[in-house]
């Protein structure tokens, strides 16, 4: 219980901070985050540029703020896509069982056998790198994980007696699925969603790192990190700052995830 509250507080604060940063960025940033100024590249931090400037003379602080908006936005959208697809598949294969399950299972295995990044790489190359492209690609890449979790919990729930009871009442399968099964997948899915959120932020940066992230000049923490790599020696802050933000955000997400997990734990529920 003690740890739960601790998680909630710390996680909440971290995420709150990041979100606040993003919201603020929507309204105001110190400088135009995409405005280049080649006369002052790679400036060290100063009163003028709090975190210095990047290789195009753009204000790092402003880009970090703008990056928060993009990174969080992309992550959120992606998670939604992954959930939508994953839940549909998971419910279907878990509840219908039989050949549906077999087929979907095979497809799922196939997708899981792909490294998620690679799947995204391929899809991106087809869709073309754009925000929506990345959301779709990563969404598809993570859907199988969701599907597996949902399927798992559906399989366990459908064995519970209240599902049988619902049948005994003469309720249709569909009704039973929606009324009695679906709600119970919520807990694991919510928990998963939080971790997903983290993974997506990571993957987006990884993609940027391989040159396929959210297209510049729009700033995401990922592509900032990526383009800072060549200047690691000259301007370490360029690499450290966005990475630190990602880490902070992920820490927040993970802690919240743990808190949720404890809150939604059936053992405490019953």
């Amino acid at each position, binding site marked *: 219980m003690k740890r739960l509250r601790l998680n909630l507080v710390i996680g909440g604060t971290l995420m709150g901070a990041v979100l606040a940063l993003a919201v603020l960025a929507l309204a105001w940033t110190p400088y135009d985050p995409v*405005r*280049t100024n*080649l*006369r002052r*590249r790679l400036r060290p931090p100063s009163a003028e540029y709090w975190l210095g400037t990047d*290789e*195009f003379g753009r204000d790092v602080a402003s880009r970090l703020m703008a990056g928060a908006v993009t990174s969080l936005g992309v992550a959120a959208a992606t998670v939604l896509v992954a959930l939508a697809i994953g839940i549909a598949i998971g419910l279907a294969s878990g509840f219908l069982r039989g050949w549906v399950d077999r087929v979907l299972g095979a497809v799922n295995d196939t997708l899981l056998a792909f490294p998620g990044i690679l799947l995204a790489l391929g899809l991106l*190359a087809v869709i*073309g*790198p754009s925000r929506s492209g990345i959301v779709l690609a990563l969404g598809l890449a993570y859907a199988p994980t969701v599907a597996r979790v949902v399927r798992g919990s559906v399989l366990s729930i459908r064995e519970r007696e209240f599902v049988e009871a619902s049948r005994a009442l003469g309720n249709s399968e569909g009704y039973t699925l929606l009324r009695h099964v679906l709600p119970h997948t919520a807990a694991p899915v919510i928990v998963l969603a939080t971790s997903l959120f983290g993974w997506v932020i990571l993957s987006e940066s990884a993609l940027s790192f391989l*040159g*396929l992230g959210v*297209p*510049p*000049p729009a700033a995401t923490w990922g592509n900032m990190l990526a*383009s800072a790599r*060549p200047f*690691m*020696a*000259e301007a370490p802050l360029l690499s450290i700052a966005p990475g630190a933000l990602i880490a902070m955000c992920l820490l927040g997400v993970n802690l919240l995830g743990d808190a949720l997990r404890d809150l939604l734990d059936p053992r405490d529920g019953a």
Partner: protein
Amino acid sequence: MKFRTALAALATACALASPVAAQDLLRIRLNADIRSTDPGVNRDGNTDGIHWHIVEGLVALRDDATVAPMLAERVDVSPDGLTYTFPLRAGIRFHNGQPLTAGDVAFAMQRYMRREVNWRCRADLDSAVTRLVAVETPDDRTVAMRLEKPSALFLTILARPDCGQAGIWHRDSLNADGSWRAPIGTGPFRLGEWRRGQFVELTRFADYAALPGEPTGLVGNKAPLVERVRFTIIPDEAAARAALLAGNIDILPDARSRDLPELRARPGFTVHSSPSMDLQAVLMQTRDPLLQDVRMRRAIALALDVPELVRAVSEGGSRPSRSPIPPASGFNTPAMLDVPARDLAQARRLAQEAGYRGQKLRIITTRRWEAFYEIAVVVQDMLKEAGIESELEVLEWATQLDRYSRGDYQMMAFGFSARLDPSLSYEMFTGPKATQPRKAWDNPAVQALLDQTMAETDANRRRATFEAMHARLLEEVPIIALYSSTTNGVTPRHVQGYRSWAVDAPRAWGVRISR
């Protein structure tokens, strides 16, 4: 200073990387592995750079990209310009000790011209402009080649590094089945060990028959002065630089321009800068509904502060030029060098007239080549100041190249590899879009001029034509030529005789190590 220690660190790092470090070993950085040892066939820039140490052609380029005899004593062109006769130099031996004969030349040329071999330049020697119809060997020491009609390009094609200089190798370079084994050439170095992904090592050819005089381009005195040359593959820029500073490589042929100030400041290192003959440019699709209006294209050109842009992108290393013919070329003229000034007001007005209403232009670029990306970013920035909105479409290189070859773009930051003949510098973006969608400039009149320059062998008349074409280019702006990038080689004190040149891959002959 922290950074120094950092580099020292990296140095020790790379000491581990290449244990060998002897007086007679020259270590040169290679940014990526080579494709093959088959000259002009399976190749890229790096590959050519290795091959030209091993094989030589009848002719080769000088520093200024003009053509000079190499294996040939001299080149005699018949009055009708159809027959080229190459008397071979005496005393030339292959790496396997065999003397060079006309038969060897014919044998190599015939393989090059076979379709299935996929020689990079076969098509160039079998085109409307230049068609090689015969290779004959009147005697053991003479080779004669006949063309269908006169061509200004013929010798250049034979000399082009990307054609493997039509390099002549001994027939034992092939397997019994005719497939490529390994090059047995006449060059100053012979192929030593090629360890994929790690290094290519060449060894000195003791019996090399050097020309007299100074080395220039790929001709002149190419005497090998070191026992072994190792091209060490280091993909990472920062690492390569560190390796140089740590003394783990002796030549960094291609330093990042942004590292130059720091390297120049450093005692004991010499920077060898040389303008190359490539071309960085912005392409515009003249069939685009918006850009088909020449006023819009002019507006865009006027919106760019080219000198500022070039200074920023090349860190002041390159000189701005709106001509596709590189300043380093013997064909570049003063007229081509002056750069029209930026004029935002004018740009705005033209855009207005062209019916521009704030549509977003899409500029395609890639991160594969930092210059493309930086150009695009700066261009976007400068257009904005002229009230022209644009967004970057940052593609993976393969995709951009695909879009380029299909002409499927609105604007594109693009770079053309070195063209060593002024006609080719225009040809690379001039042509009928119907048959060659990649061509940016589709204008029959200009095409006609271009064809002239290709048939014309008199240098001065060609220059005149090129100036005319240049003028038209500035009017019609299908592309905005920006600059030719600069090759910056860096060597430590103990390396002597190294020089960068128009083509950015390094040359190891004439280089000496003295500690």
